[in-house]
């Protein structure tokens, strides 16, 4: 335990010696300060003294509590913590493993009475310290903003700390593997960003294909229902058009199903970075009276495949329900397996190498 504490204290000293750590913390607090400056009233959104009228965002449609939670999840977590802060964290921590295995540095630690496996995994965990501290500061500040400005003391906000740290750990495991293989901070950063981009692209592609598949199903179901509806019979021209559309939809269905099968198959073996962050939506926004992001969004790739004869809200709900049909255990479990494999490989390389 003494050694673990020493390594963590050392990691904190290393982080605090870097300007980028303090810069990221300052920006985190600035983002929260901006949240605090934003408000909502009966006519729209307020920012310090100004009011921006909006028919969609006002206390008539949203409670202040839900408004701030939505800001926290959609902007704070998805954009700040999920993208920008993660980039800063990767830039800051990408050198941890290459520094560990650098000649002259690794000798000092390997000569100590600590197993290589424990040393490597502890160092890996110190890399998560940056992300964890950033999220903790951000969540704490937002907790007070929602409490004071929104009137609700939402403890579930702190679920962001483990979730975002876990999300970061998925990327940092790749960074650690590249770091131990190449001993280069730059290579670690670039290849991790590349892997993140690939994972993101596959996740988005799967989402798009899945939307198309659902749209196809909804469309054909809607046509079949209309054709079978005897209460409001359709004329011959319309019946012909519906029959043709149904035939086309049924014809395309195997293509959508096959495409989704492959994308979903690939996605299953990859870390669920996007889905992991979306878990916060489930826990924070679903409990509130506000529908999730998917329903609010008027844009998004799934709109390109939207069914003609199904209401947009119904389609979005179906897509969201399908996404949420994946259990938390599937999202976290498959991601943990991926992380375990990558981290296991990195550990084996570290343990078996001569320095």
């Amino acid at each position, binding site marked *: 335990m*003494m050694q673990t504490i*020493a390594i963590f204290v050392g990691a904190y000293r290393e982080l605090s010696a870097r300007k980028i750590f303090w810069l990221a913390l300052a920006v985190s607090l600035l983002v929260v300060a901006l949240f605090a400056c934003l408000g909502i009233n009966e006519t729209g959104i307020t920012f310090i003294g100004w009011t921006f009228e909006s028919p969609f965002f006002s206390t008539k449609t949203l409670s202040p509590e839900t408004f701030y939670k939505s800001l926290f999840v959609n902007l704070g977590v998805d954009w700040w913590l999920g993208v920008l802060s993660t980039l800063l964290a990767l830039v800051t921590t990408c050198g941890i493993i290459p520094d560990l295995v650098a000649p*002259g540095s*690794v*000798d000092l630690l390997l*000569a100590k009475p600590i197993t290589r496996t424990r040393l490597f995994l502890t160092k890996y965990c110190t890399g998560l310290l940056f992300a964890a501290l950033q999220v903790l500061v951000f969540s704490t500040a937002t907790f007070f903003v929602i409490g004071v400005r929104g009137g609700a003391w939402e403890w579930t906000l702190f679920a962001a700390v483990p979730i975002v740290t876990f999300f970061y750990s998925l990327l940092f495991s790749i960074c650690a593997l590249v770091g131990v293989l190449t001993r280069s901070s730059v290579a670690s950063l670039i290849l991790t960003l590349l892997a993140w981009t690939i994972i993101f692209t596959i996740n988005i592609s799967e989402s798009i294909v899945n939307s198309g598949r659902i749209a196809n199903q909804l469309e054909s179901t809607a046509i079949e229902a209309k054709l079978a509806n005897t209460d409001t019979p359709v004329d011959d021209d319309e019946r012909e058009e519906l029959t043709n559309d149904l035939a086309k939809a049924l014809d395309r269905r195997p293509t959508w199903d096959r495409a989704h099968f492959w994308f979903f198959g690939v996605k299953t073996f990859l870390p669920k970075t996007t889905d992991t962050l979306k878990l916060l939506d489930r826990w924070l926004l679903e409990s509130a009276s506000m529908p999730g992001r998917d329903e609010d969004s008027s844009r998004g790739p799934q709109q390109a495949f939207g069914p003609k004869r199904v209401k947009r809200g119904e389609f979005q709900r179906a897509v969201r329900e399908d996404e949420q049909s994946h259990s938390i255990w599937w999202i976290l479990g498959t991601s943990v397996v991926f992380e375990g494999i990558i981290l296991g490989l990195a550990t084996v390389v570290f343990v078996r190498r001569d*320095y």
Partner: protein
Amino acid sequence: MDFPRQPVRDSANDFAIDLADVHKTYGRKIRALQGVTLQVRAGEIFGLLGPNGAGKSTLVKVMMTIVRPDTATGTVLNRHVGDPVALARIGYLPEHHRFPTYLTGRQVVEFSGAMSKVDRPTRKKRASELLDRVGMGGWKDRPLASYSKGMRQRIGLAAALVNDPQLVVLDEPTDGVDPVGRREIRDLLIGIRDEGRTVLLNSHLLSEIENVCSRVAIMVQGRMVAQGTIDELTSSSRRYEIVVEGTAPSWCTDSASIHMIPPGQMIAAGIQGESCRLIFLGLDALGAQPILDRLRAEQRTVIAVQTVRESLEDLFMRAVTDPTTGLIYRPGAVT
């Protein structure tokens, strides 16, 4: 670490380091260690010598679990190589060490102590004492980024001693240190030995080794070619030199009469200006008397008489030179 585990030998108790049959091959081609045997007695300063690429650092790294040997038997501090209990009792300063520059000298020493499982109050106390001892007391709270190379070396020494080690392994400890600092480090090493600790000193500075080490070992191309006290290793080169005025006596070069100089053997007679130097290998003072008598009988003026022994540098150069070609051995040994 899955280091080879061999039974601990009974004789190991006398030695702080007792290694045998250490083999290490890098990448199936470079045979860094080829059956090395090393025995370092408890309480001595032992010098490990060898040219670059001889395998010294690899041997040290095998002991410190930084490099995994192909095979290795024996013990370090009476424990298997890599045993955590032994590692906790070893202080190690690697060559080209890289301490984090954002830490202060005191933090480096305390971190080293914590990693060796020294409890907090003890390591704080020892850190202060050691930093004063290596002359860094006034700099202990400044970051390493502001230190010179010699100052970092001193911090490294303090870090290697913070766990109150029984065995101290130092790889080029005076690298980058000025002559005054070297003298201080030499005194420090003697002090460490006087405290009952064992020191394994890996250095290229032969004078440094000669001054402080009780025993030395010389490695060449992954093999241990010599091991013992400096006296033992140079005894075969001990010679007697007599300087006389004028040219060499004829009997010195006359093979028929040389038998009269038992038990010595004249190996050279060289003219130096107006004098002549007669060199006798393996001759002691008693054996020299008949020669001196004869020289006096011939009315020769004896200018100087002295016993000469090979220096460590001579010994080292002899060990690293191929006797057949007269060339220095290449670094490392390739299969």
